[in-house]
């Protein structure tokens, strides 16, 4: 996987989060938590968009595979706001993996 694959994957998760956000009323506490997670993922995507780095390193590839594994697990489930606790946990796990991946890249963050 390369930088663009990760940017696209983040985009897919963000758009799924938006479907969940748009399915809750604006003042719902769970909605606020989703808003916060979206802000963090948006920030990660923007940083990856601006950065130039070697995405062929073993470290990056390992982190990308871990992220992909999490993504495969949660794909399609984020919109299920009737299971909001699971949704929030899944997004949190995904965010942690994105943060780990970004740490492998270097000091640009």
């Amino acid at each position, binding site marked *: 996987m390369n930088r*663009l694959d990760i*940017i696209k994957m983040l985009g897919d998760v963000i758009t799924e989060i*938006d479907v969940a956000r*748009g399915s809750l009323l*604006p003042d719902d506490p769970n909605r606020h938590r989703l808003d916060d997670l979206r802000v963090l993922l948006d920030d990660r995507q923007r940083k990856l968009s*601006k950065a*130039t780095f070697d995405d062929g390193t073993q470290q990056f590839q390992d982190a990308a595979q871990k992220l992909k594994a999490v993504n495969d697990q949660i794909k399609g489930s984020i919109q299920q706001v009737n299971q909001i606790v699971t949704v929030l946990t899944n997004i949190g796990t995904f965010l942690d993996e994105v943060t780990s991946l970004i740490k492998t890249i270097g000091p640009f963050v």
Partner: protein
Amino acid sequence: MNQEFSSTKTCVSSGLMPIARNEVPSLMPGKVEKSYRLRLHLLTLLILAVVSGCAKPSAYKAPVGKFRDASMVVIQSTKVYLTELNKVERDQYIYSQASKPEQIKLNEIEQVQVFSKEGIAARLNALDQLSSYVDLLNQLANSTAPETIKTKASDLQTSLTNLSGQIKTLSGEDDKQFKNVAGTVLPIIGDVLQAFADQAIENALKKAITVGAGPVNQLIQAIEQDATVAYERKRNRFSAMRVMLIDQYNREFEKGKNAEPEKLKAYADAISAEEDRWEAFLTAQPTDGLEAMKSANQALVQFAGTSKPSVSDIARFVDAMDSFAATAVRVGRAVQALSGK
């Protein structure tokens, strides 16, 4: 080989030029339905050209024209994305602050933008030069005025030199990759252009297609990466906008009996329009057009490398250009519909 090329000139002037011109409208909205009929005409003429002993340059003529037209659409669409990249980031920040609501700060607006103004200008300039190069290929395939071509090739060479200078001054972290690729491929394209001044037009065309195609594809690839980023960030913003409009409606809805029906209707209309735009946007990936352009460019190379093209070689070549043109039409229409929104 030169004699073989020269012997085609009567075929070039007698048959294919009008078809090449007729192909242009098939790229325009509403004219796609003509493409099959035009394709059949083109194929028939190409077959006649081969059967009657005409060699390759004449066979390039209409497909290269189609390649040029489709390339223009794709390049223009890509320019829209790159031009709007910073607007996307600004708007995302501005509307996100407004929806919370939180203070808007000018320094934060500056920070969120992805490329520097110089970086965007250099990429747009590279796309302009790519456009000029493809146009030159088309003129080579159709030209009856070699001196004009040589002058244009020389002008383009000068523009590429200027572009190289412009790219060298880029210092942003986000410009590194583009800078590396452009630094490698622009001199090669410049050498190809030099051949136009030194060689017969037919040979120059063949050289341009075979030697220039690799670097041109590398340049397209570099721009494609930036365009992908631009598309993904725009997708992010459009997705956020969908939620903002839903929130707007729901806030009014939550007022219960005090909700104003006119406002609810207006907000519902806004949601409906946004959903239409979202649907259109998902079909407007600039990478589709650029990938198709690379494939078509590759097909040009393959065809140029075939010394005696068979009917099936020509059919494949025409199919490749048609496929590229169809993708260009789709992406071009969608981007046009979304431009500035």
